[in-house]
């Protein structure tokens, strides 16, 4: 089987590239691998695809997914993830879960959804894992990691998020790729919370608060958000003034009139 042998050698090359972290030649190699899969008719699993081909196909797609993450090509990764789904749904007797990276890929996908703040898809995917129908278990550490992050984010324990992304809790190198996306977004979350919660904060404390490296970075960040700095303290714009307009009855007389007219019309239909 020449196609199979060719695929094997292409995959080996891809593995070396992944280890050496040289990504510039991987795209043509992947295209060649997928072409070979098409020749084997194994890009989409059918009931009579032989197991050897299924294993090869899964390996190819997983490699593609991991390489996409390394190159920060998130759309490509999503595509690979979706192509992998039919393979992960196969029963254990047809395609054993061992040797595959179902948990890792799923965990990475969850993390990607989290970094894009797509909580809707995140929870929909989580629901499928909860039902324990597929090969991916909730208890796997690769899946637990994004779940823990989401929980901390929802609660507001941002220091835990920070700790998770830095510490040893990160399951794999690929997961670290998302930290650089997540940290700015939590920094902005903290900033919007701080605006409401504090009147002012000293520069030195703000450095820790926003997980920034130096006071210079703090000043830069404050400027971005439009905060004023005086005597080494950050003053947040007064929120009271911003919301005062809302509470004014006079400004809402329009809605009151509209509602009353609405009631009148409804009453007319009833009587």
């Amino acid at each position, binding site marked *: 089987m020449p196609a199979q042998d060719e695929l094997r050698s292409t995959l080996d090359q891809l593995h070396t590239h992944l280890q050496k972290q040289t990504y510039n030649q991987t795209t043509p190699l992947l295209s060649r691998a997928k072409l070979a899969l098409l020749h084997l008719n194994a890009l989409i699993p059918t009931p009579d695809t032989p197991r050897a081909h299924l294993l090869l196909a899964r390996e190819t797609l997983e490699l593609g997914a991991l390489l996409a993450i390394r190159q920060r090509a998130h759309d490509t990764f999503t595509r690979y993830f979706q192509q992998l789904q039919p393979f992960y749904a196969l029963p254990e007797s047809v395609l054993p879960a061992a040797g595959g990276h179902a948990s890792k890929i799923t965990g990475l996908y969850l993390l990607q959804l989290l970094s894009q703040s797509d909580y809707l898809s995140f929870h929909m995917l989580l629901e499928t894992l909860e039902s324990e129908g597929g090969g991916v278990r909730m208890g796997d550490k690769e899946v637990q990691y994004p779940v823990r992050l989401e929980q901390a984010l929802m609660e507001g*324990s941002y220091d835990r998020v920070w700790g998770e992304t830095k510490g040893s809790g990160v399951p794999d190198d690929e997961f670290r790729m998302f930290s650089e996306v997540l940290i700015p977004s939590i920094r902005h979350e903290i900033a919007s919370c701080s605006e409401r919660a504090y009147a002012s904060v000293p520069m030195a404390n703000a450095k820790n608060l926003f997980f920034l490296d130096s006071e210079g970075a703090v000043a830069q960040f404050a400027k971005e958000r439009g905060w004023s700095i005086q005597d080494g303290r950050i003053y947040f714009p007064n929120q009271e003034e911003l919301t005062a307009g809302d509470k004014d009855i006079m400004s809402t007389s329009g809605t009151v009139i509209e509602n009353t007219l609405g009631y009148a019309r409804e009453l007319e239909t009833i009587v």
Partner: protein
Amino acid sequence: MVDEMEGVEKTHVEEEVEESAVTTIKANFALLERAVVQFDSRFTLRALRSISSIRKKLDDKTLFEVIVTTYNVGDETANVLIKAIGISGAQAKKIVQEIEKRDNATLEATKKKDVIPEVDIYLAVLIQVFLYDNKIYDRGASFSSVLVDRIRSLNRRTLDSLAARAYFYLSLFFEQLDPKPPSKQSQVIDMRGKLLGALRSAVLRKDTDTQAAVIVLLLRNYVSTADIAQADALISQSEFPSTAPNNQLARYMYYLGRIRAIQLLYTEAHEHLTSATRKAPTNTVAVGFYQASMKFLVVVELLMGDIPDRSLFSQPKLENALEPYFKLVQAVRAGEMQGFLKIVNEYGPVFRRDGTHTLVLRLRQNVIRTGIRRLSLSYSRISLRDICIRLGLESEESAEYIVAKAIRDGVIEATIDHEKGFMQTKQAGDVYATREPAEAFHERIKACLSLHDECVRAMRFPMNQHRLELKNAQEARERERELAKEIQDGDIDEDDAAGDFDGL
């Protein structure tokens, strides 16, 4: 002696039961025929409604007797139905002999009138019920598949409500086949094609009964394997018929609520689940449905930051089933993290079975928030360290961020002093100076008005009644015209009148 007597009595009673089942089924045939003649589905629905009472007495002998006395000997449909019951040859022979003895005529000799397809399908649905109750799932599944194909090929509008029922049992059978959902190899996944096909033809034929039933079944199917994305796509691509029967609407609302809850759209979920629980039958028939939708409603209410009424849990129908949820509510209300985690662990399997587990896990943040709110109400100033200890949080930094987020999200009105490490509660403003009372008032008026609209819509208007009125009006007009003509002609009336006056 005594034993014998009892035995005799027992067989006597049994016979009577069988007899009554046979007659009820046969009485329903008349209803079905009327439904076809008058083209009114209400008669069909009445026949279907009696299934729940027939169900308890249904067995293979009854069904067999009904079939052999309804169809001519050697009828093809009858043979298919008899095969589906799976009655043994010897037993069949015995029943035939009994009937022949009773009626004093052989079955071959008595000629029966032609049987309408509605009766065929009604019997088939009864067989489905029988097979399901006796747990003969394999045969039931294959029989149901044949049945729905037959219904689709018949394409009669008077079959619609029967078809809806047939699809319902079809999907029940497939759910029972191994491997059961949520396994990814479950046979329910293979059935989706059939259901989607049924939905397509139901929509094209304006068959709202089947359409409603099949949409609900598909949603149930998707939810059973947790394919929420697909379920969501189905909801957005299909339209649930507004004339659907109440029970289908209740089910639809329930699944819609579940899906929206998973998608974090709690307000929508709450709305749908509330209408599901309100539309659920209040008698004892559908307690399970009521309980299931109540469970979700409770969790969604908690997720929205509300605490469900205590009286809810003292309803006799809910008391036992909702006990874990009652404890959950207590833990969230108290804002106790430890207690909450304990309950999640203890009742984990229950929540998982109910499908609420992921939702319950999301409650963690609500527990913390309720805790913070309680603290902010009771203290005007509290140190972050104390908050951390009371709520069982990991660190003071966590506490600070959590409180800040709570302030941002409007859970509490407070400020944090970072250097001194405490939370200062703001004086609560006068709520009547804001727009809030007006908004609440508006909400209530809107609810009342929509209730009125719904009531009007829910009333039943008899078919063609307005035509009758029109006809009456027309007749009256005609009489008037005749009268006018007579007056104009002036032959009798004026004389009469004149005569009258003469008399005076």
